[in-house]
């Protein structure tokens, strides 16, 4: 999909002298390709509108997005979290935060993520290239080294694999709750919280594609969207006011 917007009013905005690229990934309420809607879609539309730039928006697997961000072929993506390796090639402008949760099948008898780690028969499904909060990352890395992780390029097959008991757990975020109801996954699953603080998510900017000055300009735009309530309003479209406030006020 591509959006061509007319240049906005003259101000010290980002450099729009070249077409920019932004990639979405299909992930629950962040973005659904089936409905072409979601938090990220709305955020992208608003950000692009405010920037006045021509930005081509496309849909990609998350792993591909990170590869392209690193190479500089892609300028932006959304709802990214940082870690030391990503800091090498990406810059972030935070606009919400959320916690991560372990979704497990009830029949697996798991009460904590430590239980999950201890039982070698249990497999975890994750989206390739996704990172999470510290405890969740540790769990994923441990299970990965024990070959107990099945990767996916999207959430949908993980839900199916959970339903079929091919995997017994996956890591979810609040965006995924509606899908749990929609697919009747709540009936046979339990949600276990990681004892980690909420992890900030933000606009991902390729350091290779954007100069530090440009990154700062885009970061200012995001700050502006936070300050004037635009982001909160976007979240309130998909979450209750309380949930939205919890996510955008961090």
């Amino acid at each position, binding site marked *: *999909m591509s959006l061509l917007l007319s240049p906005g009013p003259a101000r010290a905005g980002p450099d729009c002298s070249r077409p920019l690229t932004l990639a979405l990934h299909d992930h629950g309420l962040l973005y659904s390709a089936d*409905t072409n809607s979601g938090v990220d879609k709305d955020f992208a539309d608003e950000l692009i509108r405010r920037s006045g730039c021509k930005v081509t928006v496309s849909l990609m697997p998350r792993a591909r997005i990170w590869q392209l961000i690193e190479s500089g072929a892609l300028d932006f993506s959304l709802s990214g979290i940082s870690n030391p390796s990503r800091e090498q090639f990406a810059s972030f402008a935070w606009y919400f935060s959320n916690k991560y949760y372990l979704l497990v099948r009830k029949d697996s008898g798991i009460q904590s993520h430590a239980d999950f780690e201890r039982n070698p028969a249990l497999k975890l499904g994750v989206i390739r290239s996704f990172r999470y909060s510290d405890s969740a990352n540790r769990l994923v890395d441990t299970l990965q*080294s024990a070959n107990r992780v099945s990767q996916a*390029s999207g959430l949908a097959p*993980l839900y199916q*694999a959970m339903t079929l008991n091919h995997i017994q757990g996956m890591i979810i975020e609040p965006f995924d709750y509606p899908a749990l109801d929609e697919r009747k996954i709540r009936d046979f699953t339990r949600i276990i919280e990681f004892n980690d603080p909420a992890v900030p998510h933000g606009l991902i900017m390729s350091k290779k594609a954007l100069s530090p000055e440009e990154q700062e300009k885009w970061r200012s735009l995001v700050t502006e969207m936070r300050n004037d309530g635009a982001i909160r309003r976007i979240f309130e479209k998909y979450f209750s006011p309380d949930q939205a406030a919890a996510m955008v006020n961090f």
Partner: protein
Amino acid sequence: MSSARSNLLPGLILAFSLTLTWWVWDHERQAARQELKSHFDFALSEAVSRIDQRMTAYDQMLRGVQGMVAATGRMDRTQFHDYVNALQIDANLSGLQALGLIEFVPAERKAAHLARMRHEGYTDYRIDPPGEREIYTPVIQREPDLGQNRAPPGFDPWSDPVRQVAMARARDAGMPSITGKVRLATETGPAASPGFIMYLPIYARDRPLEKLEQRRQNLQGWVFASFRMKDLMASLYGELPPGLALSLYDGVEADESALLSRSSQWGKRPAIMTANEYLVVAGHNWLLSLTAQDAFASRFGRNGEEWIAGCGIVFSLLLALIAWQLSTTRARALRLAANMTHDLRESEQRWAFALEGAGDGVWDWNRESQQIVTSARWREIMGYDENRLAFGFDEWKCRIHPDDLIPTLRAMQACLEKQADGTASCVAEYRVCAGEGQWKWVLSRGMTVSRSADGQPERIIGTITDISERKAIEDRIQHMAQHDALTDLPNRALFSDRLQRALANANRRQERLSLAFLDLDHFKPINDQYGHAVGDQLLQQVARRLQETVRTSDTVGRIGGDEFVILMPELQEISDAHGLAEKIRRALDQPFLIDGHRLNISCSLGIAIYPEHGRDEISLAKSADSAMYRAKESGRNSVCMA
């Protein structure tokens, strides 16, 4: 050290080194496994990435058609043909079976659609399957127009539920969407390869498409790409790296009925590693299952663990063996030492028993400390307290008879000086104080058994034997050899010896001495009259009177039956000799009372003076003898001077 203790250390070392080996082996095994897994993960990631990128390429290809239609505002078959030709679909995209156009035909436009298609040359054109429906979605063109793609147009994929799902999803999302596993319409043979179709919607130009309803209302058709999975996978991978096998399933289950593609090596060897990855390809789920077989492990595996295990076990055993040998060698040495000590003790006990049994005492003289360690028998002989083991050297010396001390010490010196044959031993006989003025003769033997680096004796050990009895016997024998058995007076030999010494002294001192020969007068008749027993008693009394009469420095000897000699040394005057002789004569002139008999005898004495009457024994004896005969001749009972 007991056997259990001597085995403990090697056991501990073996356990420790085997544990260490296990730890290193496990560490290496895990590292190797992690390394292998990294390669495997990379291969999986690579496989996923290839599919992802290829599908993105197809997506772009279809978007090209979409863009072309958007640009022209209509689905033009000629332009589409030219477009596909321009793509130059080559072997790199060999999985692509056909690119095609589908026209969305609502029921009310069906007749017009049929007419237009027939007008464009497809005179027998009809929509397949036939029948009346609300909408029709006939394939109106397949490119490239070759081979199986030349099948007549008109197939309505909407009639197939699998295709319909993908088409509807593409229409609603405005995004590419692929079907599940299908048999392609162009496949006519019985062994058709599984395939799938990617659809991208085409909407009317310049119409709003933001909302779902808008997208549905403005749908014009689809552009699609159909794929034969076998060809697609072959063009993606060719042959997989050795030891890797891949299966691709439609959906998320590894079900044989959903199998899309499988590499030739799948299942031929046991899998050592397996991973499933769920792909979301254009809105559809695929399951990619990758297995690694032993060939993969041998290609990337480090194989270090077998070496570590082998070398570690061998090393551990060697180490334990060495430790066992060391510990048991020590134990054996200790055992040997214990046996030797035991033997030595037994030997000591035997020697002590033998020595003590023989009545000998043992002494051990340490010259440095000047201490003498002794046996019980030694202490008994020496008259010491039995419970005292050690004595000082000076203490021992004090016990020695003063006359024997110097000779004894001189003899002991032989023990300290090495002889020509390398030995150093000594023998000494001396008297030791046995208490209350009694002396005891002992025989002491010694031998140096230890010397310092410079050859000085350090230890001398030896024995002492109580030889008092032997000495007494020797003294007795000597006495008997030198004395007359009847009178106990010095016999001729002893008297001669004393005369010799007296002559030598007199000569040296320029003194006189006197030798007197005495013969009893009238002795024979007594012997004849009273018997030899009385005669013998008479001789004994004579001898006693003689000894009582002479000075202590004088010697009386018996040299014949009734002949006696008297040696009188250190004479001041010749008359002293005569006076003494006269005194003797008078003493014997007194009656003797023997066995109730009153016996009267007398004696004749001849005196010779040294040096006047002779300067040696013979001449003096001759002179005295002559004088004595003269006294006999002069009537007996008289004294004559030579």
